[in-house]
Structures are given as C-alpha cells and as structure tokens.
C-alpha cells in the first residue's frame, strides 16, 4: 500500500458537496440506505432541495467535489437533472477542477443519458454493477441483467467517460472465489479507474436481514469473507489498483474518490437532501430521513435538520484514528498516541502486525484492514 503525500492532511482544503437523491425504481433487499420508490415525490423533493441550498449559500465557500448519490440519481428525469445542476451552480461556487460524480444504475444508462450528464459537467461515474453474474443479479434483485450491464458499460466507454468506478458485491450465497475473480476480470475489461468491492453485509433492518433471521439466507463465514477480501486486494493490486480504503481501489492515486476521501479526513462537507450528513468546524449534523418530513419542513421555511453533535477533541481524535486506520494513509503517530511516551504501546501494537510505521504515521497492514473495526481499540 502506497500512502500518497498529496493527500496528507492540508489545512484549508476545499469542502465537498453531496446531494442525496432518495429515489429508487425498486428496492434492493440488502440495501439500508434511505430511499423511496414513489417517484411522484421527485418534484416536491427538488423544490425542497432548492430551498435547502438557499439556506447554505456561502456557508462552505468554494467546493471542489460534487457527488450526486442515492438512492439512484439516474432515475431523475432529464428536466429535473438539468434544473438540479443549474441551481447547484447558481447557488454555490466550485473550483475549475471540481470532481463531479454521479451514481448510476446500469439499467438507467443510455447514450442519451450519458450525453446529458456529460453536458452537465459530470466527469466521474460510479456505476452500481454489483455483479457480472445473472444468477447473482437476480438474487440481489437488481433491475439489470449481465447483457444490459455490458451494454451500458460499453456506452460509458463510448461516451468518453474515462474516469468511472464500478461497484461490486462479493459474498452473496453461492458465490465461489473463482466466480468472484471472473467478475473482477470482466469488470476490468471496461477499464474502470476505480473499483468499490463490498462484502455483502446483511443488515438487520433489510429484507435480507429478515431472511437471515428466518434461516432462509446464509451470509458468508468470516473465513470466506477474509479469503474474498485478500483475493480481491491481491488481484486488483496485480492489475495496477491501489487498495486505498477497506472497500475502495483506485488505478493510481489520482483516481481515488476525492469526495469520499473528505469524509475520512475530516474535510468539511455539506450534505443536501433527506438523511444527508454534513460536517464543518467540528460539528456534524444530519437531515431527517423521511422525504415527506424533509419537504414539509422546507416548505414551512424551517431547516430539515434532525440531529447534530459537536465533537469534543477526544471524539475528533477517535474518529481520525478509526477513519485513518481504514485507509492506506493511516494515521499520524501523534493522533494515535497523544501522550508521550508511547514506545512500549507502539511496540506492542506493532507486534500484532496490524500496523506498520512509516514517516511518523501508522499504516494499517492488510491484516489491519481485516481487523479495522477493533484496531482502534488497541490505542489509548
């Protein structure tokens, strides 16, 4: 893992802007992100969103990333997409080199849609492929088939999107390591600059969670999960990808998701839309999740904020620690050990082989990535 000097923390890095599109044509049984399938609420959502933009105007200065996520942003019709981008540009200022990402469902991708996105300035796509196997796609209740996916990705290539990521899920029931490698190989034939590979996580509140509880679904074992994880890291590494975060790989550091990196490095970000989180000046706040409440509140002219927290220095440190340890940049030694001397502690932690030390930073090893949820507990 190569830590990049470029992304070492710098003061005054521009903020990121996130827009949550809480709509999906169908709900995927594993997903616990907030979205609704009532697409008729789209108009109301947009006008509420415009009001929310108004509330923040200059609060975050100039942005250098814009991320339209969801939900499924590509279910937005062209008119709405156009007004959304117009308004974003009218209300906020962006640097010239702003990374503008849109999450896309292969089923929604058409040459026309791609042309529109391009014309709106979108320069990065994050494509929710999830699998290159028809059986798995059915199990995951995805709208797209293998054939449709391949076609969509060809269109992406043809439309001249050179910077795009493919999202995949490993560990659905029945998947073998061989099958997973075949999926990865297939993905690479479309020349993505970014790969997100998530282990299928079965959340209690989802339909999969219910199936698991009833015994109708089996998640993969820890041992299998470990095997998938290490195989993925090795395979993508051999194919020129940097494993820069637990589930994220970039074909060279310049293709990391600049927007997502802000979350992991406490760079300010503004989240607009139902359920979106924002962070600035040590304070984090988040909107109500319900589209209806969100719209109602903004209609009345009030803020749609549901909760907030002001982080203490110790909480900020703990977040820096665990977020840093999820990335190949790790965490500065003085964040990990705020009090000197730490030699003995450091020695003991190094003995676990979960981290190594480079340039006064603690860098997680692959084994450290695998234990990232408990790794922070080893520190004071």
């Amino acid at each position, binding site marked *: 893992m190569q830590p990049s000097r470029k992304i070492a923390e710098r003061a005054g890095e521009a903020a990121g802007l996130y827009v949550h599109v809480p709509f999906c044509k169908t709900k995927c049984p594993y997903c616990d992100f907030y979205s609704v399938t009532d697409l008729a609420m789209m108009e109301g959502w947009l006008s509420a969103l415009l009001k929310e933009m108004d509330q923040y105007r200059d609060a975050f200065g100039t942005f250098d990333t814009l991320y339209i996520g969801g939900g499924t942003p590509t279910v937005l019709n062209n008119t709405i997409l156009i007004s959304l981008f117009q308004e974003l540009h009218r209300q906020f200022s962006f640097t010239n080199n702003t990374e503008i990402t849109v999450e896309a469902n292969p089923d929604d991708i058409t040459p026309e849609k791609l042309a529109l996105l391009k014309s709106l300035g979108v320069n990065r796509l994050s494509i929710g492929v999830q699998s290159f196997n028809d059986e798995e796609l059915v199990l995951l209740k995805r709208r797209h088939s293998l054939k449709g996916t391949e076609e969509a990705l060809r269109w992406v290539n043809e439309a001249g999107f050179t910077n795009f990521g493919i999202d995949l899920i490993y560990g659905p029931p029945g998947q073998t390591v061989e099958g997973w490698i075949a999926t990865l190989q297939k993905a690479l034939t479309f020349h993505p600059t970014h790969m997100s590979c998530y282990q299928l996580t079965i959340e209690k509140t989802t339909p999969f969670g219910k199936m698991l509880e009833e015994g109708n679904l089996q998640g993969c074992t820890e041992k299998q999960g470990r095997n998938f994880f290490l195989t993925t890291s090795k395979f993508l590494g051999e194919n020129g990808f940097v494993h820069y975060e637990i*589930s994220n790989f970039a074909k060279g550091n310049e293709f990391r998701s600049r927007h997502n990196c802000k979350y992991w490095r406490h760079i300010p970000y503004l989240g607009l839309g139902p359920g979106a989180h924002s962070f600035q000046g040590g304070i*984090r706040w*988040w909107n109500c999740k319900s589209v209806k409440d969100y719209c109602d509140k903004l209609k009345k002219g009030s803020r749609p904020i549901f909760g907030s927290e002001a982080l203490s220095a110790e909480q900020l440190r703990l977040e820096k620690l665990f977020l840093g340890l999820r990335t190949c940049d790790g965490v500065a030694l003085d964040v990990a050990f705020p009090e000197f001397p730490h030699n003995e502690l450091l020695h003991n932690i190094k003995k676990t082989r979960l981290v190594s030390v480079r340039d006064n930073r603690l860098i997680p090893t692959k084994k450290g990535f695998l234990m990232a949820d408990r790794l922070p*507990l080893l520190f004071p």
Partner: protein
Amino acid sequence: MKQIRNFSIIAHIDHGKSTLADRLIQFAHLVDDRQFRDQILDTMDIERERGITIKSQSVNLPYTSRSGEEFELNLIDTPGHVDFSYEVSRALASCEGVLLLIDASQGVEAQTLANLYAAMEHDLVIIPVINKIDLPSANIDGVKEEIENELGLDPESSLLCSAKEGRGVEEILEAIVERIPPPKGDPEKPLAALIFDAQYDSFRGTIVSCRVFDGIVKPGDIIHPMSMGTTYKVEEVGIFRLKLEPAKELTAGMVGYIIAGIKTVSDTRIGDTITLEANPSPEPLPGFKEVKPVVFSSIYPIASDDYQSLAEALEKYKLNDAALIYQKDSSAALGQGFRCGFLGLLHLEIVQERLEREFDQSLILTVPSVQYRFGLTDGTTITVDNPAHYPDPTHIKQTEEPYIRASILVPERYVGVVMKLCMDRRGVNQRMNYPTPGRVEITFDMPLAEVVFDFYDKLKSITQGYGSFDYEIIDYRESSLVKLDILVNGEKVDALSIIVHRDRARERAVMVCDRLRDEIPRQQFKIAIQGAIGGKIIARSTISPFRKDVTAKCYGGDISRKRKLLEKQKKGKRRMSVVGNVEIPQSAFLAALKTDNE
C-alpha cells in the same frame, strides 16, 4: 408486678413462623390494624423476600388470660437458618419454653428436629403447634403421628392453628401462660444479663437485646460485658414493643434492651454476660463461645475504581453484623478487594445481597472456600482459606478438610437420588433411620466444601422440595487436596484458583474453562484457556481468533454511529481485566465463579 413468660417460636423454614408471630402481635394490639404489615418482625427486604428471619427480633406482648390474670409475654424471634445456629441457641437460652411449629401438610422436617434437639438441650417446655390446618392438604393425624414417633412428644399436647386465618391463636396464648413456667432469678443477686442480639442504630449506637437472669440494670449503671475488658454507662433500658419503649429498669426474668454508648455491634458478643462493674456476677452465664467463620470468599468491586466505596460500605455494614470478618486482599486480575469470613453460605449471600442493595455495590465474589489444614514437612500445621496462600506442594505432608454431619429428612421415594447426591459429594458413613413409615432420616458425614457448593439447591431440586437438611460441623479429616489454577494464554488468573479435592478438580476445571470460553470475547489471536494442577494441564478450551472484523462501508452517514460504538467498546474495555494479553470482562469472572453446576 405482672407475670412474665419468655418464649420462642421454632420451626422449619416456611412452616409459618413469621405469620404466627404476626397474629400474636395483632392479638396484643401493639399496632392498629391499619399500620400492620405482614411479617412485621422481618424488617429487612431480604427477610421478607426470602421468607427467612435473619436477625432476631423480640417483642413484648401484654396479655390478659381467660382467668383474668395479666401477663407480659416476651416473644424472642430466632433466625431460621443453620448458619445462625449459635444465635438461635442464645435466643433459646433466654427462654423457658418454645412453640414448636409444624406445617400440617409438610410434617416434621430436618430443621424441626434440629430445633427440637436445641430446645431440649436448654430444658425448655415444648408446645407443639400444628399450623396451616386450613390447607386442603393438611394431614393433622399424620402430623400427630410424626410428633409422637419422630419427636417423641405427646401428640395430645399439640395445638391446632391456622396463623393465616387467625384460628387457634388464643389457645396458643393460653398454653403459653399455663404450660411455660415463669422465669426464675433473683433481683437481689449481682446482675447477669445474657446478650442474645445486638443491632446498630446510627443515632443511638448499639442496641443490645438481653435477658436478665439475676439482678437489676437501670440507667446510670456502669456495665461490663464479661468477655471483654470494656465498661459502659447505661443511657437507657426498656422493652420491645415493636419500637423501643423505655423502662425504669430491667429486673431478673425480663427481656429488653440496653443502650449504653456502645459504638458498634462488634463491641459486643452474642452469648456474652453483662454485669455491673461495681457488683459483678461471680461467673458468666454458661454457653458463651466466639462464633468463627467457616466459609471464606474474596469480594471485589466490579469496577476496580469502586474499591474505596466498597471499603466504606463494608465498614458501615459491619456495624450491624459482628459475625462478618474481613481483611484487605488483592488480586492481579481483579484488583483490590477484601477477604471475608462468613458463618455459612447463606450468611455470605446475605452479606453480598445487602451490600449490593443497601449500599449500591456491584460485586464479584470468588468461589467460597472452607478452611483447610496442611501438615508441613517441617512439622508445623497451617490453616488456609485462601488459595493464594496454598503452601508449596513439595512441603505438604498431609492435607485435611472440615467435615460435617448432614441430616436429611425425605419421603422414602427420594432415598435413591439423595444417596447418590451425597455419595457424589463424597459422603461417607451413612446411616438411615425410619422414624415413621414412608419417611427416612439419612445421616451422612460429608466434607463441608461439598455443601458450600450448591448442595442445598441440588437437594431441593432432586427431591422436588420435599428434602430438608441440617448440619453440624464435626471434625477435620485427611483428604487429598490440590490447588487448581486457571490459565489464560499461559497466564494464571489468580482470582479463579481454588483448593479442591483431587477427584473434583477435572470436572471443575472443565466447567470453568467452558464458561470462560463462552464469556471472553474473541480477539485477533487465539486464546487458550487451561485448567492446571501444578504444571499438569487437566482441562482446556480454545477461543478462535477473529478472521475478519471490518465493516464494508463507512461514508458520511456512518461515521457518528461507528464512533459511538467504539466509545461504548472503549468504555467496556476499561472495565475489563487484562491477563497477559487477553482482556477478560467481568461477566466472565461472574460466570466462572457462579457456584451452580448447570
């Protein structure tokens, strides 16, 4: 002067002692009915919940007999458990008679017998009372037969009553004044008053309960407890009328209290004789002995920073429990704590429960131990109640443990299971006695250590509640003892070491290893849990390491949630003990130290 009668009610647990006491008190109109509550003498929550009396309470009941004579009846309530048999014996020594209460459906049980023997030792008049005659399952004739055959008493002398319904209460009171003799004693002789209880009051100091045998005591007297070198000036004397009712004096024959600026209950000894400094009694009343603890355990606060608070709680608790002894103890795994000595397992449970409830402590207790004797190669003998002080095995010539004589009374159909239980617990020398058809009294000599370990619960469960049990400590016998250590990744967990009979060691080790395996959270490395005697491993279990422990997604909306989880885990970690490189949560100690065998 009114005539006095001093009596106790003795009964097997649950035979209705507290209810009968309630009725006697109501009959005497000491409280009006609105203020009355059940089990009025059992003032502690634990007593009410468990249905047992822990502290003796006395009450003075005015009574006018059918013939019109006026009496003062002193009811001296006694603790209802074998752990407190010495207190019981001192209460009995203060009486001239007892009501021997027997449940009409349960009949004579082990403690009925034990109580009867105790009353006979004190030459008391015994009035058998068959209680709960209102129950559909009451078998009055059967119980009368048992009274004749098992107790050797005249069944015709027995009274019938339903304390619950208040039936037969007056007949009992009449029998008390007719059959129990008035106390003897000479007010002209030097003061001799027997202490049968002492209670601490935060305003007044120790309130000593006593029976005056000879002489008179009054405020202003300088008294002297004869087993100690101390003297106190009497501030107040009086009688118990549910509250303290001051009196001018206490004279020979009376039961009452003395308040004399005595700081703690430990400054008095139950069974001691109080006399006057100026005109002392030539000798103390008979039967005084110092009670010695027989069960030992170390108490630790669950959070080690609560040590100071535990120290203060123990100090306060001790004000009212002279039987508890304690001293500082420390464990590498559990930190600072106290080694405590108890009268028995029930006493231990009561202390633990009261510290937890009344003093708001969260505690871990190590496995209760008895006092073992070790004959060493240098010719000396040492007693050890704490595994930490187990002698170097190469220096041990001989090991001994205390034995009890257990007496168990069961319906015949349970003889098989009870015999098996007793033999599993290394019982020897059994004798059987068939006092009445269908019932068997089984006597076994057993190591005390085996009884300390959930014996009573087991007995109750295998006999579906019909088995009753009583015991006395008899002697020390030679025994093959070892020290069992529990190791986590090769490091000894000192708080889990126990001294145990060699034949028991493996079973115990397997149980502890399995319980720890279930309670210690997995870590990123393998954890081996072993039971060992010296260098020899006799049990082992393993906790497999985490293979993977990482959440796939962590974006804007996940960060707070994840941090909160970490904060919680970090907090939990601070409450864990670290042995070697393994973190052991307190729940694992609690599980491993549980005495039941399930």
